[in-house]
Structures are given as structure tokens and as C-alpha cells.
């Protein structure tokens, strides 16, 4: 499913917080004209990101709108004129050799790039670790281990040279680092495209990975590439690694060489309920429902039961499709049936079969963690069983033959422990 550009016609909604960190502050007012690529909200502080307009038109309102988590959030609503008139100052390729490291970092920050793998962590923060010389690996995450999602695969097949250029720019910031492009073996075309683009380049290689969820998890990748396992309290930079999604690296290339801010990214529309699945370069702020309708809608006779922003393993369930697509959203999976509902009906007591232990990418003991959490023994959960190390990948829950809601239990237990810690710290 090749990548296609999707140009929305309807109103565009830009949440002020699409990233991890403080929400941005609007710098436009109602009725202001806006252009593609124009900054409409400023980052508030270092760990924050700007908001970029992805269409041309006029600001309709700055108000609370429902976003994909189901919450109401401050958003800038833009009446899209459908012309997509770009703002000035980007689009022309520049000679990168004259750019200093600070220029590169500044352009990444200006372009409002966040991690497109899903978390949405501001990239300019990630690229400024305490000691750049200690970074040994820049890992380009092309694993795309979520089932159903294929847009990164398409991006790597069609934008291999651009991704490699982006990686080269990143490597300039880290003199001792090697660039490793990790791709799961189930994407042979992407692997060969990237290998072709990498050939002849220094400090760079493609690393085919075992096809296995959660191979694209930051920690799983670091484990494979650097052989390092590290506690949840540490960051990848602490073990000399920086992991960026290939989509993010492509965005870095656009930002640095073309001065182009991030206002579009790739997204997979998929799921058994979709009539025409496909991969799109989608503009931020487009509503999920507009994309679905324009693509041809649902399959005939199918009722939508569950909509996921992302893939089935870690996707966020949507209560409604009338919410805007954010920067880091890379999939819309629409299912005619809810596997969670089916699983709930099959739930039995824990068998202690140990399948969860076998699949846990962190080496935890989910069956005992669930037991401790259910017993309310959070001390045991945290200290004996290292329950805070859970990365909530959902592998245990997926594999559980007794269909226990393990990850839900862990989420709650972790939230409760963190709340207690905050309360204890506040005294």
C-alpha cells in the first residue's frame, strides 16, 4: 500500500498539547489568516513544542475540543480554505555543510519535531543529552512491530535516501556514535532500500531484526543494538543510545535541509472494518472521520465496534472518530469486533502457565505482579517484583490464555504507586 498524500477539506483542529511536556501558547487570534507551515502556538519552556498549521485559512476559534484521549483540550480551530498556500521561508534545499550543530538543533526545535513513534517527546530535547560524546548509537527505529501498521515500511521504501541524510545530520551532533537502522525482517523491501541508501556511507549500517513484538520498543532495540538493559529510571542516553523513529528522522531531514516545519506525517488506515486500507501522508489536525470517509468509509454491512489510534497492541481506543489527528499518530485501526470484549467472556482464573513470563520483554514476572496488585500488596509489586519496570507493551495480556487483564492491572498499580510517592514526597 503505497503512500498517498491526503489533503483534507474540512476544518482543522490543532491541540495545543500534542507532545510530552508543557502545552504550547497560542500566538494567533480568532479570524487571523494562517498559512501552511506557519507557527500558530509557541512552545512554553524547553520541554515543549510549537504547534504548526498544516493548511491555509482563517482561525475560527481557540476553544476546548475533544481530542483522541477523550479529554477536552485547548485547541486552535482553523477554517481550511483548501488552497494549502504555504508560508514563506521553506521548501528550498540548502547546503547542509555550512550548518553548525547549533543550527541543526535550532532548526529541529523550530520545526516542532516530536517523536513520531507514538510518544511525542520533543526531539530537540532528546538531541541535547548531557554528554553528546558519550552517545555510542543513534538507532533509527524502523522496526514497526505493531501488527497492521505499514506506513514506516512504505516510508523507508520510498524515502530511503532522505532518511539516511537525516541520520547523517544527526550523526554530526554525536562524534562517537554509529547510526544503526533497525528493521524487522518481515520488511525485506525496506531493508534492501535502506541498505542501498546506506552503502558507501560511513558510521552507518542496517540491522535486520527478528520479527517480534515489541521489537520496536525503545528498550528492546537498545537491547539488540547495544546489548544493554537498564532500569526504567534511566534514559537511553544513560547507556549511550538515542532512538528515533524513521519518520522523525525524515522530518529532521526536511527541517534541516528544507527548513520545513513538521505539519504532516505518514499514517496507516487499516483494520477489518475498513473498505480501502491505505497509507497516507496526512496533515496534522485532520479529523479521523474525514480521512475514513474520503478513503471510502467502512466495509458494507460492517458496524464499527472499536477504533484505535495506532495499532492493536498499544493503540489508544477512540470514543469517537471526530477528533483531530496529532503529529505522533501513525495509525487508525478500525475493528468490527472488540477482541477485549471477546477475551473478557473467556476469562478464567490464572493458570500460572508462565506464558506471560516468557514473552515479557523486560524479564518481569507478570503473573506474580498481577497477584500482588490484586492482593493490594503494592510494596511487593514494586520492590520484590520490580513492577514499575513494566513498559506496558501488553505482550503478557496478549498471550494470556486465561485472558486476564494484566496490563490494566499494572497500569493501575503503577499509577497508584506513583501517586503515593508524590504524596510522600510532598510532605
Amino acid at each position, binding site marked *: 500500500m503505497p503512500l498517498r498524500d491526503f489533503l483534507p477539506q474540512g476544518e482543522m483542529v490543532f491541540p495545543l498539547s500534542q507532545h510530552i511536556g508543557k502545552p504550547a501558547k497560542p500566538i494567533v487570534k480568532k479570524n487571523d489568516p494562517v498559512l501552511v507551515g506557519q507557527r500558530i502556538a509557541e512552545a512554553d519552556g524547553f520541554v515543549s513544542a510549537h504547534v504548526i498549521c498544516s493548511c491555509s485559512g482563517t482561525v475560527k476559534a481557540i476553544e476546548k475540543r475533544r481530542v483522541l484521549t*477523550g479529554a477536552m483540550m485547548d485547541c486552535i480551530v482553523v477554517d481550511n480554505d483548501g488552497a494549502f498556500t504555504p508560508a514563506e521561508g521553506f521548501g528550498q534545499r540548502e547546503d547542509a555543510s555550512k550548518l553548525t550543530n547549533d543550527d541543526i538543533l535550532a532548526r529541529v526545535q523550530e520545526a516542532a519535531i516530536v517523536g513520531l513513534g507514538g510518544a511525542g517527546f520533543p526531539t530537540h530535547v532528546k538531541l541535547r543529552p548531557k554528554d553528546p560524546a558519550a552517545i555510542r548509537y543513534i538507532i533509527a527505529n524502523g522496526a514497526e512491530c505493531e*501488527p497492521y501498521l505499514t506506513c514506516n515500511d512504505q516510508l523507508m521504501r520510498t524515502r530511503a535516501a532522505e532518511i539516511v541524510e537525516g541520520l547523517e545530520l544527526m550523526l554530526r551532533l554525536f562524534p562517537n556514535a554509529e547510526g544503526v537502522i533497525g528493521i524487522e525482517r518481515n520488511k525485506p523491501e525496506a531493508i534492501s532500500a535502506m541498505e542501498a541508501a546506506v552503502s558507501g556511507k560511513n558510521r552507518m549500517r542496517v540491522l535486520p531484526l527478528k520479527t517480534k513484538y515489541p521489537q520496536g520498543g525503545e528498550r528492546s532495540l537498545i537491547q539488540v543494538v*547495544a*546489548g*544493554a*538493559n*537498564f*532500569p526504567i529510571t*534511566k534514559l537511553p542516553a*544513560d*547507556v*549511550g543510545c538515542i532512538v528515533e523513529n524513521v519518520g522523525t528522522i525524515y522530518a529532521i531531514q526536511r527541517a534541516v535541509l528544507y527548513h520545513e516545519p513538521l505539519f504532516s506525517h505518514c499514517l496507516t488506515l487499516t483494520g477489518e472494518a475498513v473498505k480501502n486500507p491505505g497509507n497516507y501522508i496526512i496533515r496534522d489536525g485532520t479529523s479521523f*472521520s474525514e480521512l475514513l470517509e474520503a478513503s471510502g468509509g467502512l466495509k458494507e454491512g460492517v*458496524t464499527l465496534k*472499536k*477504533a484505535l489510534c495506532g495499532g*492493536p*497492541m498499544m*493503540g489508544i*481506543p477512540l470514543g*469517537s*472518530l*471526530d477528533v483531530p489527528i496529532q503529529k505522533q499518530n501513525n495509525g487508525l485501526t478500525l*475493528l468490527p469486533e*472488540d*477482541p*477485549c*470484549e471477546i*477475551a473478557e467472556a*473467556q476469562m*478464567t*482464573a*490464572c*493458570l*500460572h*502457565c*508462565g*506464558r506471560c*513470563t*516468557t514473552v515479557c520483554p*523486560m*524479564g518481569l*514476572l507478570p503473573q*506474580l505482579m498481577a497477584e500482588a496488585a490484586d492482593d493490594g500488596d503494592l510494596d511487593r509489586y514494586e520492590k*520484590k*517484583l*520490580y513492577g514499575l*519496570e513494566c513498559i*506496558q507493551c*501488553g505482550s503478557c*495480556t*496478549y498471550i*494470556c*490464555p*486465561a*485472558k486476564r*487483564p494484566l*496490563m*490494566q492491572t499494572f*497500569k493501575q498499580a503503577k499509577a497508584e504507586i506513583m501517586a503515593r510517592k508524590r504524596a510522600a514526597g510532598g510532605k
Partner: protein
Amino acid sequence: MNTALNISSSPHTRDKWSTAFIMRVVTLSLLPASLVGVIVYGWNALLVLALSVASAVASEFLFDKLTHKGDTWKDGSAVVTGLMLGLCLSPSAPWYIPVLGSMFAILVVKCCFGGLGKNFVNPALAGRCFLLISFGKVMSAYQIVDGVSMATPIAALKGGSAVNITQMFLGTANGVIGSSILALLVGGLALWALDIIHGQICFSVLISFTAAMGLFGGQGFDVKFLLAHLCGGGVVMGAFFMATDYVTSPVSRLGQTVYGVLIGLLGAVFRIKGGAPDSFSYSVIIANLFVPMIDTYILSKPFAYRRLARGKWDGSGPLLKRVPRPVIVLTSIALIAGVALSGVYALTKGTIEEQHRAAQAASYKVVLPSAESFEVDAALDQAVADLNGQVYGSDFGRSYINEVFIGRDAAGEIAGYAISATSADGFDGNITLAVGVSPDGTLNGISFTELNETPGMGMRADEPEFKEQFNGRTATRFKLIKAGSAIAEDEIDSVSGASITSSAVVNAVNAALDFFHTTVKGGN
């Protein structure tokens, strides 16, 4: 747009395997053994299996209904428990054995402790041990293959005799319904290949058991000896199906290995020093009881905290440091148990032998009342030694000649010969008796020195009505006939309802007489 979309925590996809599916696969894996059992032992074996499974499921159904626990009987775990229990029973077990066993397993061991996932020992094994304790004699009555009465191979092995390993492997020897090692291996290895059971458990059981038998079994690493022990007494069943029970085995890989080794060692200790052929069940159950302790001390740490994985990252705390402690504790427990058992055996060995000798001497006196003293004869001793502890002759079942004494009267004349003979074909182990023979070949009488038959049945062989039939007879070989009709000189009335015991006694006496006529008289 559709506004009623489902919201739930991720993941939004699930593996196809469910509890019921796993139970179905385990049930399937037991079918080869069940099939072989039914083919070899006949329809009664099928009846035992059916009753066992049916009453297990019915018990759980009943418990569900009485306690409003939902429909847990549908998950298929009761079928597995029932089938496993049935396979561990004698094919000739009466109907109430599988029924009571399954009821105990499901109602007491499983349901009363919280149902699926909460039982603290393996329900099927607990059911079996319950039956062994409550109905010992019925439980150890193994059926007869091809109409021939035989002890189970493992009892025979204990008795020191040779067993047919091929028969044991194929499952055509005497034993429980699920005694075909081949069929059990097919099922067990399939489960392992499907990742349903953990290899570290079953293989550590087998390896540690074999190693311990080789080291302490007294026969070294003799392949035949080890194979016989591996193929008998439920070792394979225990290793693949019982020890691997999810609920009653440890969580971490290391814990599972320790647990498996514990089972293997306990099994070997019981096999070498203990008496019961069913001891492997007990070793699994005892190891089950250690599981909470293993799970307390041997918890694997997350990758980030493991010493081996630490690599370039050195911020984590002490890692596998605590692991050796429980390993040491458990190994010590196993060693102490072994040493204690051997110690008690060594301490009492002398006394036991003395008492044995006294009993022997007393019984010689009984069968040769006119003798004042008994002496050994070098030539006869050599003749006994030449038998090499092998089965005597070919017409006397599994009979052995133990020793021969010459009895002399007050005048120093030979009053007769006392011959000790053993038959291993008793209903419940060995029968050893002393036979007194006058120099002219007249049988003075017999006296039992070892008799462990069923009270009220086989034990009645020791009553005068049966054993005094031999007194004063001159026949060189006796025939056993049905009770109440012996007239001829060479006929002996069977103890009613104990033909196995009676036949073993007659075989032992015949062996002793044969030895007298061919060796004592022939040799002199």
C-alpha cells in the same frame, strides 16, 4: 458516525490460545497412553478412565452449582485431572476407586482451596495418594496381563529380579493404565514442543533422577538398570505430566530447575531406600509443597537487574547473589533426607539381620524338630552360591534358593535338611519359607519367615489348615488344586480366595524339594 465505540485498555488483540484450548491439548496428549492402556488391559481400563473423568467433571459441576461459582467445570481442567488420575490407577480397580479418587482430587484438593490455579498440590496425584493410603491393598492389586499373575515391574525390580524393559517401554507389562512409556513420551514431548510444559522441569526431573540412581542405586550407571527404573514407577508420567502442572510448579526458570532436581533426587532416594513402588507420586507432592518457598527465594529479576545482562551498564544492585542460598537449602534438605534414611538403615541393619537370623534359626527348628544343632556345609553353600541369586529352575515361577543347613540330632546324626526358599510371586511381595526335609526325602513341614500377604486372605497361608498339609508328604513336587478336593499325595488345597499366594508357596516348596533331590541328594 458511530458514537458507541468500545473503550478499553490496550492491547486490543489477543492470542488464540485460551485456558480451554490448553486443557484440550493436554487431554489430547494423554490419549496415546490411554489408548495403549485400553488396548493392553481391556475394557475395564476404559471403564476406569471414563469413571475417573466423569466423576471429576461431575464433582466440579456440583461444586460450581452448590457454591454459585459460575461454570468453571467447562474449562476442561477437570477432564485433565480425571484422566491423569485414571491413568495412574490399576486397570482392574473396582468402580469406587476412580470415583472416590476424582472426588477427592476435585472437591477437596482443587475446589476447597479456591479452584483452578489455587490448589497447593497436584490434584490428580493427591487423589492417587489418598487412594493409596485409604485402599492400599486394592490399589496395589495390579491386573494380570495374559492371565499370568505378575508383580509390577518396579516391585520385581525392588525384589532384585530382572524385568523386561521392552515390555515396560511399550506398556505391555503389569502396571497402571498409563504405563506405556512410549505413548507417554509421545504426548509429553508434544506438549514440550508446543511450549505447553516447561522443559526445564521435565528434563531436570529425568536427568537428576537418572544421575542419582546411577550414583547411589548400587549398580552404577548400568544402562539396563537405569532404563528399568526410568520406565517404571511413574517416572515419565510424573516428569512430563505431574511435575509440570502449572499451578504447583515454580514461576522462574531457575526455580523450575531446582524444583525438578528436587523431585528427581527425592524420587531416587525413595526408590533406593524406600519400599513403596508408588513413591514417585510422593516425591512430586513433597516438591509441590516446596514451591511457595522456591518462589519466595528464587525470583528472577528483570533483565536490567541481572548481573549477566548488566554489561556496560553498572548502576544496578546485587543480582543473582541470593540465588545460591535456596539452591543450597534445598540441596541440603534432599541430602539430609537421604543421609538420614541411609543412616537409619545402616543403624538398624545389624539388628534387622540378627532378628532375621534368629527367626530363620527358629523356623529351621520348627521344620526339623529332632535337630539339636544346625551346621553349614561348604559344598552345599557353594551350590547355593552357584545359583547366583537367579531364579531357580524354570518350573517354579520366580523362586529362589537362599540357604541350606544340615540339622543334626543329639547323637550327631543327620536329622534332615533345612532349606530356605523365596517366591517373588506373592500377592504383596516376597514370600520366604523354610522347608524341612528328612534325609529320605520326606517333607517334615514348612514355616514362613517372610509373609506380607493380605490379612484374612493370603495371610491364611500361615494357618495350620494350609501349611500342615505339607507335613509328612513324600511327593517330590506338589500340585495346587481348588480348595476342598485334595486327595492325592502330590495335591495341595489352595487357601480359598488366595490362589496367587498359595501358588507362590507351592512354587517355593517345589523349588526347595527340587534343590534337595537334585543337589543335596544328587550331590552327596
